[in-house]
């Protein structure tokens, strides 16, 4: 039961990050490998605000979201759109955006190392809470609840509003979306920026119960990618389920076998997905 509860709580935070990446890859079609660094930046902001000003990470969320939105939007406009324009084929864009976002990711790690080279350690809401007969840290519970709230809001916005529908249309087919009068360029930039903001929020939340440091971003990028692929690219519902599965399996492996093997567990899942369901959990047809 312990494993199930903490696995689900961890999965909740992963789901948020994967949703951010899904918006960027599914809609703007940029494989953003600097995603994990945006997450760490969110965590760094929460840490810094807490240690320097005693600001609760929950308040930092409100500041981080617009900043990450603007930052990601600028990143898309200045660095990535030129690549979209230059690319002759989808494959070319893929290679270019992978390399460019690697560059951005290393650059951000470099910047963060110069800001703070040690671990971002702080203690927020580290009090035990009793839940369904087991004990969890309050910070994990709060993080998972907020992640669920943000994720739910995003899900409703995408499925129930006009701009949300435009975003989904671009995800399905940029050409067709353009034909029905959707400004694909603007929607892509918006989706990319929104994805960045969601990821940074995830970083704020994760930093309350996981000790991060400047260079741990790539592990999160890796996990978010595995979740997105397992859930099916562009499929928000699939991503949530996939995130919960990853959270559960990781927690189970960490507590039963060895905490050093969580990445190995993530890879085992990844391999299984590639071999048996490369189109995603709920996907149809071939990938």
């Amino acid at each position, binding site marked *: 039961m312990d494993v199930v509860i903490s696995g689900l709580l961890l999965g909740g935070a992963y789901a948020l990050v994967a949703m951010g990446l899904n918006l960027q890859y599914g809609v703007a079609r940029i*494989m953003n*490998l600097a995603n994990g660094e945006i997450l760490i930046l969110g965590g760094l902001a929460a840490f810094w605000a807490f240690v320097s000003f005693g600001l609760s990470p929950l308040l930092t969320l409100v500041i981080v979201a617009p900043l990450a939105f603007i930052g990601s939007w600028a990143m898309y406009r200045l*660095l990535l759109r*030129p*690549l979209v324009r230059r690319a002759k084929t989808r*494959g*070319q864009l*893929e*290679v*270019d955006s*992978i*390399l*460019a976002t*690697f*560059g*951005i*990711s*290393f*650059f*951000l*790690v*470099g*910047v963060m*190392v*110069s800001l703070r*080279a040690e671990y971002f350690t702080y203690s927020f809401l580290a009090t035990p809470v009793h839940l369904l007969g087991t004990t969890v840290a309050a910070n994990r519970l709060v993080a998972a609840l907020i992640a669920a709230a943000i994720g739910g809001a995003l899900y409703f916005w995408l499925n129930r509003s006009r701009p949300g529908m435009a975003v989904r249309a671009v995800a399905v087919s940029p050409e067709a979306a353009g034909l029905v009068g959707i400004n694909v360029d603007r929607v892509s930039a918006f989706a990319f920026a929104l994805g960045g903001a969601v990821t940074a929020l995830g970083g704020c939340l994760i930093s309350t119960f996981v000790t991060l440091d400047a*260079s741990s971003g*790539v*592990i999160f*990028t*890796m996990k978010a*990618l*595995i979740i997105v*692929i397992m859930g099916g690219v562009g499929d928000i519902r699939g991503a949530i389920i996939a995130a919960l599965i990853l959270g559960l399996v990781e927690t189970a492996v960490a507590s039963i076998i*060895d905490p*050093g*093997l969580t*990445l*190995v567990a*993530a*890879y085992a899942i*990844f*391999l299984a997905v*590639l*071999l048996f369901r*490369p189109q995603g959990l709920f996907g149809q047809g071939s*990938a």
Partner: protein
Amino acid sequence: MPDILRGGAVLLAVLAVAALPLLTDGYWLSIAVTIMMYTALSTSWALFSGPTHYIALSTGAFYGIGGYLVATGMSDFGTSFWSMMAIAPFVAALLAGAIGIATLRLSGVYFVIFTLGLAEMIRNLVSWVQNNFLGSKGLYVLTELEERHIYWMLLVVTLAVFLFGWRLGRSRMGFALRILGNDEEVARHVGIDTARTKVLLFMTTGFFAALVGAIVAPRYYYIEPNVVFSPELSFLVVIMALLGGTRRLYGPLLGVIPFTLLWEVVSASFPSATTMVLGLAFLLIVYLIPDGVTGLIGKLRKRSVP
């Protein structure tokens, strides 16, 4: 230039490079070893990633397998350096084959993602096995080999990579690979087994990377999984190959030499700035020289011809 002259020039150049350890030892020899190592790694990387456009980030993993197998073989199982050096490349090639079969049938992104965390994942797995089953004592690689011996061995590997690449360019498989790189759909329609071609070539990349890792292992003396399974190495190899350009066999060499020197300076004088330099190098390549130095030279030459 007639073939015989060209062949003679290449032979002379090889002999000159091979004579280097007779002229210098110490600092410059160690730089030369590093350059030789990255030349072998980047050139064999480019043989696969150049035509297929799949950014393989697995070099660090295969290199680590080479180094680690030598270390664990010598320390835990009492085998000789030479037998481990002979085994390691085949182990890595088999692993590369398995990874290739799982990922290369699908879109390129999955392959990139899979290789991205590979070194780190294998490192975690190896550390776990080491701590739980083999006892966590240190792994020593003690041999009689000196720096110059390592240099010569790496030179042989580098020549083998070049020879392989040269032969490949003239073979049916090389031709298939060029078609595949231009348009996979077309390749499939003219009857090329695209998955098989990609997997086989990826296996050779893994083979050479592990061989290099095994040869370089005596340089470390004491091996820790944290050191040999270095994700950074994978990225350095990618940068060097792309900086030089992957369209020509000698392209990566033109990236390796300047970047190794730059990297030496940066890691000696500004060790905290290495990650940022890595990032800037990637951005520089993508935005300013997407076809590498060789592509740039080709463009300039075309312009000067009226």
